[in-house]
């Protein structure tokens, strides 16, 4: 059972890295970006291609899995997304759905629809026995990497000037602008960073969740659950929500194999009905 807990935590932290960009975008720009998963997919495919076609080692590919989607995100944000910040949520939903459709079919066309397989380096494979619990090496790696990321993110958010400007902009963009904060720059930087994180998450997820062109839509609901249950006003909220979701999903699939998925969806619906602003959000 502890193995399940451990796996659940690993899964949860992975979900967090994948979804936190979405949480910040929603909280910051109030933009419903359903195409977020596409950036994760991009990171995964970049890693797979680099490793399989060009023999790049796994660890070396990871930073590129961050940078690639970050750049794509930056370009898209400046050229397309920025025009829709003041549009209705319906428009944003339609737009991002359109983008996802395009991304999925483009990847299907260029890379084929089969699952992408990567070969993990030897030191990340297999399991280790720690205090009687069987722990996967790769999952430990994920927990470490994601844990470091969370700490770094929280530090940036709370200790740096950029972080406080970001928090100000989330709280009230108009007032932030009035204080001389370059809100557009913050939006662009944050969007790019969030997309990069998603890309990194996608690369890490390839081994655990599987990577094929349907990835963005398959896991969209998970990202959305993290954001809505965790709230979009901090990163601690989504962090705990991801952990909760990861553990619940793994446990559900193990203990009630047929209905594991229901656990998640029902949980989400219940939370949304009882606390529409999320379980962990600050009450306004």
């Amino acid at each position, binding site marked *: 059972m502890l193995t399940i807990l451990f796996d659940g935590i690993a899964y949860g932290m992975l979900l967090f890295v994948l979804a936190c960009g979405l949480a910040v975008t929603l909280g910051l720009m109030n933009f419903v970006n359903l195409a977020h998963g596409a950036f994760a997919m991009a990171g995964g495919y970049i890693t797979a291609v680099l490793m399989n076609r060009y023999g790049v080692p796994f660890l070396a590919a990871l930073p590129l899995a961050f940078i690639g989607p970050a750049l794509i995100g930056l370009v898209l944000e400046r050229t*397309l997304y920025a025009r829709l910040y003041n549009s209705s949520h319906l428009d944003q939903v339609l737009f991002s759905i359109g983008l996802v459709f395009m991304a999925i079919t483009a990847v299907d066309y260029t890379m084929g629809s089969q699952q992408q397989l990567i070969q993990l380096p030897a030191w990340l494979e297999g399991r280790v026995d720690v205090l009687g619990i069987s722990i996967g090496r790769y999952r430990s790696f994920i927990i470490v990497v994601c844990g470091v990321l969370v700490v770094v993110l929280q530090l940036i958010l709370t200790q740096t000037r950029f972080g406080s400007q970001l928090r100000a902009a989330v709280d009230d963009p108009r007032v932030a602008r009035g204080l001389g904060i370059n809100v557009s720059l913050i939006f662009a930087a944050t969007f790019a960073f969030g997309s990069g994180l998603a890309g990194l998450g996608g690369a890490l997820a390839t081994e655990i969740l599987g990577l094929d062109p349907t990835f963005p839509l398959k896991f969209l609901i998970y990202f959305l659950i993290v954001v809505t249950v965790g709230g979009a006003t901090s990163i601690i909220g989504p962090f705990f929500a991801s952990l909760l979701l990861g553990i619940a999903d793994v446990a559900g699939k193990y203990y009630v194999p047929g209905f594991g998925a229901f656990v998640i969806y029902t949980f989400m619906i219940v939370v949304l009905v009882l606390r529409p602003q999320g379980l962990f959000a600050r009450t306004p």
Partner: protein
Amino acid sequence: MSNGKTSSIGASLVRRGRWRIPEIFFWVVAAGALFVLPDYLLLLNEIAIIGLFAISLDLILGYAGIISLGHGAFFGLGAYVAGLLAKYATGEPLVGLVLAAFAAAVLGFLTSFLVLRGADLSKLMVTLGISLVLYEIANQVSWLTGGADGLQGITVNPIFGKFEFDIFGTTSYAYSLGVTFLLFVIARRLVVSPFGLSLRSIRDNPLRARAVGIPADRRLVAIYTLAAAYAGVAGALLAQTTQFVSLDVLSFNRSADVLLVLVIGGVGYLYGGLLGAIIFKVLQDTLANITPQYWQFWIGLVLVVIVLVGRERLTHWPRTFWERLAGRLVRPSKRLRTRPVREV
């Protein structure tokens, strides 16, 4: 009270309820296609079904302002109910329609309370979540639904005992068109009624709507239930006319597609669903012939372009046309004359 004023204001309000020439023309053409386009009846049947599905979405999106990413749940439920009924109980099509509508309405009613609360994103998520739950259920009970292979072996009796379903789709199209027309008439009546007007007010300004005494929640539950029933009927039509139901009817793609259909045609004036269905299906057919695997790419592109250009701008012409017809936007020269008319 002066009669002149009363009658002109009353007339102005009533005018929007009356059918217009272009509308009658539209339906006559639709019916005429039955005889004039015999090679395309299967396609026309699909258009009618999607059109009805889109109208059902318009009722909640265009008139009540609820963004739903999971409207396919009702469509799919209706399809499976009708399919299972035909397979295991009776092949009587009208019974299937009624039962499908009822089942979808019940689901709609139960889930409507979840959709009342929360912001747009919440509604989106809850509706998406519900359709995903249904998809999972259908997947899990594959012994009943056929799972990924789909529900097969559906046989449907002739309509009214006389009109058999042929392979050319004549009966199918006539059937779907008839049902769609009937439901359309009801919906059209509803949107110009006080109830329909109150829905629009709830969409435009829920705070003010409540402040004039409108029980917003009750109205929203009512329209959501009705829209679910309509979607269920559309699903049933699909099951009965194609005699096959696949898991796809409950997929996210279905819900996204119907949203696209409605957006292409224009939200909020009922005919948008029908126009969008025609455009979408023709587009899809053409694109699928060119790139059978990747036509979704172009659909996605269309969506992106529509949003960037501006939905309002694109559907400006048909909507203004419609509003002029309905007497809601009046040119200054025709403005309501309400100067007191002295009665002699």
